């Protein structure tokens, strides 16, 4: 009785499907078009011939290096965020003193600090620390700005652990570090996965920090590398589109092999 087809929803999703798929397919098709003829035919035309030239152009340049750098920065960021946010979340949830709740408030306030607003002093700091033009120059600030959301998500997950479990461990005489490793970490795995995915995406998407804190090819990331290609390739749009397409391949692989974990991790940012 209630399965009357929802025509309105059908029409809207069909429209959205076009909005999503037309630009994406234009990128993929253009990436395999020969450079000659693109300007006359435009982005939506069907290719008269297919070629791998553009992919080869991109891959024979510095692009693989940018990908490797980005992967490294992503790993560094995730490692720093998880290592720092887990103890903070634990202290905030279980500490229960005015000090730990003050710490929580501070991170709540930190949510409202836009990274752009502090990038000038950060630039100074990075220079003073001797990190300019290194991968850490991008990873450390990115991790710092992922911390507030991570602490919020983690403390939410850790509050779900029942008090009886803590009491049982306390009865056994377990200290905080044993409680953390044997109880809190295993039981907040999904929260930790969420902050991992969140931090990884922040690092992968980051643009302002690598733009300002790095300079040389050897420490360039995919995002800033792509931006350089806009000027470098100029009218060679098919090569540029090939670079855009290739930049999505690493996450596409993650998506194909770990879709469930990725989606669950992202959903976790919104809470339950």
């Amino acid at each position, binding site marked *: 009785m209630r399965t009357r087809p929802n025509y309105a929803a059908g029409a809207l*999703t069909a429209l959205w499907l076009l909005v999503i798929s037309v630009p994406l397919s234009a990128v993929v098709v253009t990436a395999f078009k020969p450079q000659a003829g693109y300007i006359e035919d435009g982005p939506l035309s069907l290719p008269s011939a297919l070629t791998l030239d553009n992919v080869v152009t991109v891959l024979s340049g510095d692009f693989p290096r940018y990908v490797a750098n980005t992967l490294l920065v992503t790993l560094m960021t995730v490692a720093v965020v998880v290592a720092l946010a887990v103890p903070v979340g634990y202290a905030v949830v279980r500490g229960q003193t005015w000090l730990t709740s003050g710490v929580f408030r501070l991170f709540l306030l930190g949510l*409202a600090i836009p*990274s752009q607003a502090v990038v*000038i002093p950060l630039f100074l700091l990075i220079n003073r620390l001797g990190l300019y033009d290194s991968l850490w120059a991008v990873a450390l600030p990115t991790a710092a700005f992922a911390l507030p959301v991570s602490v919020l998500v983690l403390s939410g997950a850790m509050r779900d652990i029942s008090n009886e479990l803590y009491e049982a461990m306390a009865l056994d005489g377990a200290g*905080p570090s044993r409680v953390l490793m044997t109880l809190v970490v295993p039981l907040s795995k999904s929260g930790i996965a969420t902050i991992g995915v969140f931090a990884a995406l922040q690092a992968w998407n980051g643009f302002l920090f690598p733009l300002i804190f790095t300079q040389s090819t050897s420490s360039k990331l995919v995002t800033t590398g*792509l931006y350089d290609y806009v000027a470098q390739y100029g009218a060679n749009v098919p090569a*540029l589109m090939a670079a*855009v397409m290739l930049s999505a391949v690493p*996450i596409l692989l993650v998506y194909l092999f770990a879709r469930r974990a990725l989606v669950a991790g992202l959903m976790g940012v*919104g809470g339950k």
Partner: protein
Amino acid sequence: MVSQLTAPAKSDVTPQQPPRTRRRVAPSVGRPGVVWAVPGLVFFALFAIVPMLGVAYLSLTDWNGLGSPQFIGLDNWRRFADDPQIVQAVVLTLVLLAGNVAVQLPVSVLLGVWAAGHQRNRAVLSAIFFLPLLLSTAATAIMWRQLLDPNFGVPAQLAGVFGGDGNFVGTSRGAMIALVVVTSWQFVPFHSLLFQGAARAIPHTLYQAAMIDGAGRVRSFFSITLPQLKNTLVTSGTLMVVGGLTAFDVVLVLTNGGPGTDTTILPFRMYREAFQTYDYGYGSAIALLLLVVATVVSLLLTRLSGYDKMQSTQEGV
């Protein structure tokens, strides 16, 4: 998440009641002290809070990046008075923010609720709708830049539909619309994912009760789904606001602040002053202005949404 965050946070502040009956374990046994939070706190302070104080100091100086900053008092702030583009930048920042939220919020709610259904076709389409998330903001902006290119992009080919000479991004209104479209295209999938997760958590019994009462689809949506999604609406809205205030990469790639200064929002202007003109003092003053705008907006948001006194939506269910 939000409900769980705020409710117990309040009980944190109230002093611990002494137990009436003797407990076998003292309440402080096995509890972590504040030292556990120190490494994270120091790290966050070093890279976020100290720089915030730094930007306040630098805004009172004249500095071109070489030598040491010269203290000049409020001169940078006085420059705001003679800089009509600053007021424009604040207005543009808020307009872009409003446009982004106005487009993204309804679309992601509808898509998320739709995707929460368990039909097979919805699962397949959702997997496609997820795809923009695989591209970075820079990649998305570059893709759209080529598609909207005035010379060999889509508007040039379909000039009849778009009107004009196909230079869509070259008009001030067109450029703003393009920024909203591109940002929404990239972030709607993420937000609809949040709403999908939240919509699946709504107890089915609520809908059954509504059906017995004779409520239709539209009525159920407004009377059950939306109120139940309240916490996620706030979380998602907050993330949209923060993202909207700080849209920098899209502006740099897509419009470069133009035409003229018609899309020069605050973060972009700050970047220009500091890292292209090397006027770090004035750049810092603009950065501080951005911080003030961000704080005012998030305070308003907290008040309007009742974030500070939020409750679980499932009470009494």
